[in-house]
Structure formats: structure tokens, C-alpha cells
């Protein structure tokens, strides 16, 4: 396995408006393999977004190192390579769209990488097809729904041929169907294109699909493991101000009442199978 992102004792400190110094990241060691789908959870202010911004050199650490495909993010000369390898999608779709026509927006990234125009045309078409928005290529982005706009933002990243996409709460402003569109797109890119995914989210059901889940608290990684490992620790997740999927909590409550169920049920389907076995 090759490392996509590897960090060593990363610390990041900043000074708030009031002059107080805050340790946003306090010794992060994480290694994300190529092709992995990683979810990062944690309450607001736990350091998730700060960490994500280190993954493509939007922020640099005060101490420690971050390697993106073996390139040190502190190496300024490699900044464009790093940003091309690891693309980022943010929470608010309206803040990320720069052009007045969908396909021009998607072309913005490759244009800045000085890709030749024929190749740009090809990449834009492919990227729009990958997010299932090709038929909207001539539309104005302001006429699209939130989920569609986020998929355009993702297409803009894909057109840069990244190996890794970091998404910072990409579904926070979307309705249920918009959320599903975006998550399905991310899963598809991971499974079919082999793109490494780092997903930061407050929706526990989105993290259930990940290969690995990390939980942050006070700038540190406090839990990690498969979704089953992490979510089965219901009390610990709650003490960190987080949730578990509703069925996992139902399962936890039933286990407390002495019902014999496995601790690591994450989906409605698994729960149905287990309960039918008991009946």
C-alpha cells in the first residue's frame, strides 16, 4: 500500500481575536492509504477543518510534517502539484462557483494548470459525466439545486485529475436528496475511479460507508477504526458530543435490556436480519 497522506506530530496554533492562543491541532499522526475512504468526525471546534486544510497546504503546521504523496507541504515550489493531487470541496456551494456557465466553472481548474484546450474540453466532459451533470453543462450554476451545485464543485476538482479529494462538510447545507446525490457521487469516485476520499461530516450515516473513521477532540485524534469499531462505542461517542446511527443506538438500548444482539449494527438491513433471527 502506498501512502496518500501521511502526517507526523502535526501541531497548529493560532491566536484568537481576543489574543488567546489556541492549539487547534495538537500532535496529529495519521496515514491515509491510496484509494481509502476515510471519514473524520468531531464536534465543532475539535480541529477537523483545520486538519483538512493542512492536507492540501492551505494551512501549514507550526511543527511536524505533512506529506502528500511523499511531497512535504512546506515545499513551496511543489504547491501546485500538491493542490492538483489533493483537491478540496467546502461546505457552501455558493462560495465555490466562479463562472456563469457550468462547463466554464469546471474548466477553471485545468485552465489554471495550463492544460491545453482540447484536453480541457475532454476533461470537463468526463468530469461532468462522472458526477452525472453532463446534461446541465450549458446551464447557469445559480439555477441549480444545492446538491447539483456541490456536484459541479466536485466536477471542478475531478477535472484537475486529483488522486485525493478532501470534502469539508459537503452536505451540511443540503436537503436529504441533495445529500444522497453528493454521497453517492463520492462513493462512486472512490470505488470506480480509485480516488482517495477524506470526508469530514456531522452526519453519522455518511461515515458508515467509510473504510476507516477518525474521531477528533481538542486537536487530537481520540478514536480510530472501522465504522463498526467506532460506532459500537455508543457511550464514548455521546460523551464526545457525537451521535451514532439511530439503529445503532436502538441496538445499544436493546442490549442494555439483555437482548442478545451484536454491538456493531450500523444499518437498518443488518438490524432487520438480526431481529428476525431472534423472533
Amino acid at each position, binding site marked *: 500500500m502506498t501512502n496518500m497522506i501521511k502526517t507526523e506530530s502535526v501541531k497548529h496554533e493560532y491566536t*484568537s*481575536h*481576543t489574543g488567546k492562543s489556541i492549539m487547534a491541532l495538537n500532535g496529529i499522526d495519521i496515514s491515509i492509504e491510496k484509494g481509502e475512504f476515510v471519514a473524520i468526525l*468531531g*464536534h*465543532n*471546534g475539535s480541529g477537523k477543518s483545520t486538519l483538512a486544510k493542512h492536507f492540501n497546504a492551505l494551512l501549514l503546521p507550526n511543527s511536524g510534517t505533512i506529506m502528500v504523496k511523499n511531497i512535504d507541504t512546506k515545499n513551496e515550489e511543489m504547491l501546485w502539484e500538491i493542490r492538483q493531487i489533493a483537491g478540496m470541496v467546502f*461546505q457552501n456551494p455558493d462560495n465555490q462557483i466562479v463562472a456563469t456557465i457550468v462547463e466554464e466553472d469546471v474548466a477553471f481548474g485545468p485552465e489554471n494548470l495550463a492544460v491545453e484546450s482540447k484536453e480541457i474540453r475532454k476533461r470537463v466532459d468526463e468530469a461532468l459525466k462522472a458526477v452525472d451533470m453532463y446534461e446541465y453543462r450549458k446551464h447557469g450554476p445559480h439555477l441549480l*439545486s*444545492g*446538491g447539483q451545485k456541490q456536484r459541479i464543485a466536485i466536477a471542478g476538482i475531478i477535472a484537475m485529475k486529483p488522486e485525493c479529494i478532501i470534502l469539508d*462538510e459537503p452536505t*451540511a*447545507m*443540503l*436537503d*436529504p*436528496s*441533495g445529500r444522497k446525490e453528493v454521497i453517492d457521487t463520492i462513493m462512486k469516485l472512490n470505488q470506480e475511479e480509485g480516488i482517495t476520499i477524506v470526508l469530514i461530516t*456531522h452526519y*453519522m*450515516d455518511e461515515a458508515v460507508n467509510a473504510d476507516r473513521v477518525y474521531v477528533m477532540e481538542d486537536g487530537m485524534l481520540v478514536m480510530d477504526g472501522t465504522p463498526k469499531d467506532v460506532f459500537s462505542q455508543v457511550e464514548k461517542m455521546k460523551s464526545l*458530543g*457525537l*451521535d451514532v*446511527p*439511530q*439503529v445503532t*443506538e*436502538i441496538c445499544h*438500548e*436493546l442490549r442494555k*435490556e439483555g*437482548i442478545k444482539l451484536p454491538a456493531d449494527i450500523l444499518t*437498518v*438491513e443488518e*438490524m*432487520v436480519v438480526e*431481529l*428476525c433471527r*431472534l*423472533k
Partner: protein
Amino acid sequence: MSIKVENLSYIYMKDTVFEHKALDDVSFEIKDGEFLGLIGHTGSGKSTLIQHLNGLMKPTSGKVFIDEDDINSKTTVKKTIRERVGLVFQYPEHQLFEETVFRDVAYGPKNLGLDDNEIENRVRFALDMVKLDYNEIKDISPFDLSGGQKRRVAIAGVLAMKPKILILDEPTAGLDPRGRDEILGEIKELHETHKITVILVSHSMEDIAKLVDKIIVMNKGKIVFIDKPSVIFRESLMLESIGLGVPQATKLARELKEKGLDIGECLSIEDAKLQILKVLRSKKND
């Protein structure tokens, strides 16, 4: 009667090529003290509807009554409507602007022309309702607060107007699970102890199921359903077809029933737990 909407329609950019019917013959009534959930996918007309309820938007046709007053009639003073109907927009913290928390929350009451004493009482009441300590927070700049605290201050600014009807447009968007539970808890308390009529717009079916007495489901500018949560969430296929969903507990109960294990209807974790226990234990005793 608290709110009555009669045949309300609203057309954006009427008589242009962009003409779009955002609300299409909407009628409903909300009684005093009700807790109502408003759901529908993005673009279904929810935000357009709530902006009609305090006179921010004027209907293309139809009427809106707040306590018998036709809010768009020439004789109704708009200011008195906005005092009665408090509207908390999405991401309300973007609207904070004053130098201190006190001044920000006091802005509304001040514009009502209240005296200093009453203004202070209002600010204390409002901050108390959102569980912020008056003495600790009043002199701080709202911009130095955390995201969850900023949102609370913004909501307090609306509560300081002492509205009879409180409308919140996705008050928990972007908050983490704890922040979400805290804000919803405060809204619930406000509704229970102060008998305020609440309209909650939300994309979270779990939150809606947990809190409200009645749900309005909107699609393409029309009301497709008004009923109790237990009745609405029976229609899971219809809800999915218009871009919505049902709580996971409800889905679990439905799928168990399909497999021959009927635990009845569930809206919450608590329901599911109790009903599954009941079914499993009664089987054991057979």
C-alpha cells in the same frame, strides 16, 4: 386561531420568461400553541411561504391572517405583525452586527421604542432562553463567540421581541450533534413553558419526528400533506419520491413488518426500543 393562510399563491418574476410559481394555492390554519414542522426539498416553496407569514413578501394572490388581522390590508400596521411573528432565518449568525452581545440582542426591542429597563429585561429573558449567561456574555463581541453561541445570540435577538409565533428556518444546519440537541431543547422548552406557537423548517426527519405535533409537507409550491407525524411518516414511498425520507426508526419498523415482525409504528429510538422489547418478550412467553 393563530395563523390562517387562504389560497396563497406567489409568482416570481411574473410576466417574464423567468416566471415561476413558487406557491400555488396554499391554504392551512395553525392554532395557538401548536408546534408545526414544515418539510420539503430545496425549492419546494418553504422559505417563500414563511416569508409571507410576517409580511416580508406580499402574495400574488390569496390572504394571510395573523390573529384575525389580514396582514396585507392597508389598515394593518406591518410593525405590529413583525412584533408578533418572529422569523429566524437560515444561518442567522450572519446577521449579527453590533459591538456587544447586549446591543445586538437589544436592537429589536430598542426599535420598538421600549424604555431601558424593559430592554434590559428583554435581553435577560432572551439570553436566558437560549441558555447563555447574561453577565458573562453581555459585553463580549458576538464575533468572538463559537459558531453555536453566535447562533444562540442571533435567535435571542428574535426572542427579545417576545413574539407569539416563532418561525425557524433550519436552525440546526451546520451544527454538530450536541449543538443541534441543545438548540432544539431550547426551542422545545420555549414552546412548552411560554406557549409560543412554533414553525420549524427542517431537513432532518429525525428532529421533526421528535418535536412537532403536526407536519406540513410541501412539493412544487403546493401542500401535499398536513397531518400528525405518525400519519405522515407512514407514507415513506411518497416522501422519498419527493426527495424526503423518514426517520431510521420508522424505516426499521416498516422493514421488520415486511419480514413478518410487526412492532407497530415508530418515530423515535425510544419508540423502537419499547416496541421491539414488547414484541420480543411476548414471543418468549408464548
